[in-house]
């Protein structure tokens, strides 16, 4: 499985990262270097092995379904690059 320029452009788009046209080829080469090395895992027999997502050994704890936080608009907006009237401001998304 080798990554080409088109694939890099596609994953860059999925990741919302602007990768300039002249960087697509070098990035593809870097990623292929890493992916070739990762392919070593194909040697390992993993039929009937359950994937491991968490090592904690305990189930996720449950809590009461109640509001535990809120009423802190000032703190939520304290670091906003652009805000107005208690809202985040973004470029226009609706025509």
């Amino acid at each position, binding site marked *: 499985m080798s990554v080409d320029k088109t694939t890099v452009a596609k994953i860059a788009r999925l990741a919302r990262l602007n990768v300039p046209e002249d960087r697509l080829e070098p990035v593809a080469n870097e990623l292929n270097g890493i992916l070739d090395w990762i392919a070593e895992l194909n040697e390992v027999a993993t039929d009937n092995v359950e994937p491991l997502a968490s090592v904690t050994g305990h189930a996720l704890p449950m809590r009461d379904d109640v509001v535990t936080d809120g009423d802190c608009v000032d*703190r939520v907006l304290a670091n906003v690059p652009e805000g107005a009237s208690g809202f985040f401001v*973004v470029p226009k998304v609706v025509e």
Partner: protein
Amino acid sequence: MSDLLDLSAVEARAALDAKSISATELTSAYIDAAEQTAALNNYVLLTPDHALDMAARADQRLAKGEASLLEGIPLGVKDLFCTTGVATTACSRILQGFTPPYESTVTANLWAEGAVMLGKLNCDEFAMGSANETSAFGPAINPWQGAENIDLVPGGSSGGSASAVAARSALMATGTDTGGSIRQPAAFCGVVGLKPTYGRCSRWGIVAFASSLDQAGPFTRTVADNALMLQAMASHDAKDSTSSDVPLQDVMTAVGQGVKGMKIGVPREYVMDGMDPDVVALWQQGQDWLRQAGAELVEVSLPHTKYALPTYYIIAPAEASSNLARYDGVRYGLRVEAESLDQMYEATRAAGFGEEVQRRILIGTYVLSAGYYDAYYLKAQKVRRLIKQDFDSVFTTVDTLLTPATPSAAFAVGRKIDDPVVNFLNDVFTVPANLAGLPGMSVPAGVNADGLPLGLQVLGKPYDEASLYRVAGVLEQAAAFTATPTRRAGGAT
């Protein structure tokens, strides 16, 4: 003032309780030290007013006889921990100007125990790196110098933490370890670093890299100081659903308990091509020390060890690509204006993230994308289980494992390597513990032919930090590691 800087935290606590020194004196000495060693670039932000204010309050509590565990101890905080009202950037341009309105649980625990914050410490951007060279603030420098007096990396990602503790510009420091980011820099800088069991310290308020692997831990100059600091950092926290309620053992007592009767495994797979021969010799020496102290050393096998690094380089970027999706230029940090919302996201993230972070986001996005998820991500999760099973199996017969911490000593800043995979090899001995969630500790145990520190790593069963401290206590005593770096406060800088 240099004698104040030579006190361990345990000694400083005793001197503070005995009123032979004050928290303000100790803190002032460390503020001076941090300024004196500024060329090492291990702090990205000094907070002297804040520190003196905290020290004054510690002195009041000391006067009233209300001292807590770390009362009056000045420490540095890796810039990955959110600190109320104090800028937190993860050493990334994308968090430029971010001032958290909340405090991480770990740092809140430290302040509740009376510790004093000296400032925020340099690290790799979003903790992604093994040399502290991906930081937006430039590299932190190792206070140790090689034979040629060239600048060496302190390791990473918690490079500023290790450098500051070694240079005596912090008495202790927090770090985080996702693939070795505490243990590797501790080894490179000749200090003690612990990655606790996954779940031991709350991740709440720590800038996330790879959530199933990230764990906070202490950097100190002695093993006993490390146990002291862990006691303050660790807690069960409802705000982190993976935080554990298994009580911490009496780790302070464990430090002096010795290893008589312990069974310690030596994994035969912990070797690699190009390993520094001094590392191999030190590993053998460590086994001899432990045997002389009454432990039984046995060779064990962890057959999937060689697959740990490639497994890690699927799982960690996958989780990172998801965690870093939040940096969008809307709610905090950097924003690059553009015509449309999507263009704003893309421009902001391209300008805000450095090269290594972008590479990992792209890899992570790829291995999670439709058509590749099973071949990469699911495969890695399956191999992760096999790696964990290797450890589960050996820990039915041994109490701890002894391995080298790193394949080599610290290397030169700016060492040019085109192949990112070569840089990943730094973490070959540390990554398996993250994948399995195990506690691991790096203890300075000797120097190589160039006079640079080398560390031994002790790995243990989940929630059995006490056994690590028993082994580390013996190694520390046997190694009698008294060498100090040249570029330390009170020395040449």
